[in-house]
């Protein structure tokens, strides 16, 4: 018991050195990590609203939360192209987040899966790009379809679900429908 002060002091010294080193690394990497996140958002918005330049896409906020994005043809807010929003729904083993772009009538202009940790080889196919193809095939099916009326084939819709990953496929479809309905409600509130 007598050396408890000495041992505690040494441990304190070592943890202090470790904490200082980590604080330094954190400050160095923080701007890079934030830049990566901004880049990822830019990329997703460009895929969701391909006809709108990035500088002509504006977030619509309520308090500090971004409700949705509005995209125009020019940064001067001329010629509305459509809206982009993030949908999320519980998949098989994770929350699947998707960025979706729609025109003013609700037809899907583009979409990209942002986050998912589904079963490798099955659910992860929601964002799989087949070798030699440029675009992920699962989300490509959504293009030009009305966002409010999507359903997977097993539920009588025309989105072909992924073999062995019906839950993940259905999660994407249902979350897009729900998020589109929320967009409609939010737009009424904003106008």
């Amino acid at each position, binding site marked *: 018991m007598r050396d408890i002060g000495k*041992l505690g002091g*040494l*441990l304190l010294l*070592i943890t202090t050195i470790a904490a200082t080193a980590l604080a330094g*690394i954190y400050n160095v*990497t923080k701007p890079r*990590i934030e830049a*990566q996140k901004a880049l990822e958002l830019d990329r997703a918005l460009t895929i969701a609203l391909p006809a709108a330049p990035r500088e002509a896409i504006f977030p619509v906020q309520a308090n500090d939360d971004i409700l949705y994005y509005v995209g125009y043809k020019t940064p001067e807010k001329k010629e509305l192209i459509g809206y982009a929003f993030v949908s999320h729904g519980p998949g098989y083993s994770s929350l699947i987040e998707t960025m979706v772009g729609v025109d003013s009538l609700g037809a899907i202009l583009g979409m990209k899966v942002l986050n998912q940790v589904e079963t490798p*080889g099955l659910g992860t196919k929601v964002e799989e790009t087949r070798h030699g193809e440029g675009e992920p095939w699962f989300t490509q099916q959504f293009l030009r379809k009305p966002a409010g009326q999507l359903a997977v084939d097993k539920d009588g819709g025309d989105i072909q679900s992924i073999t062995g990953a019906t839950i993940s496929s259905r999660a994407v479809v249902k979350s897009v429908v729900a998020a589109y309905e929320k967009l409609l409600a939010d737009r009424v509130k904003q106008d």
Partner: protein
Amino acid sequence: MSVTSEFTKGLYKQNPVFKQALGLCPTLAVSNSVESALGMGVAVTFVLLCSNSIISLIRKIVPAKIRIPIYIVVIATFVTIVDLSMAGFLPALHKTLGIFVPLIVVNCIILGRAEAYAGKNNIGLSIIDGLGMGIGFTMALLLLGTIREFMGNGSFMGIPVMGPAFEPVLIMILPPGAFLTIGFVLGFFNWLENKRAK
């Protein structure tokens, strides 16, 4: 105890996965594709090199009673450095490896080498030991990743090698496939060892 043997022992004779059966959790979890196996292997090798050198440097001032908490602090520090740098510079890989990067802290290979080797040997040998063990671990992950991705997805590093007629054995890239593969691979190495002994 030559420098060469200190390095090569980690590759085969004392391979952390196949011979010591250490660090099986990340081995099983991230060996479903060659790419994530390689990323995980490199991350673990880096942490192992850094923790082995620091622990070897401070081994004379670390009292035996609190050596484990000190080792864990050192290891956790390097893992956090890897985690932050990966998020900043290799975001795609960071996303694939997910929770398994922070979990390198509890990878028993790293604490095992600290306790069994770096805490008793000088820094030069500890670095060589860490490098050998890290490469041995990476090779093990790559072997499992290659087998599982090939059988379960018909591809190597994401590039299809089997043609469209190949029906992938899905179970191989699912968790049970990890246990099946490691079982067969461990069995094979033991069989090889027994054959040699005769």
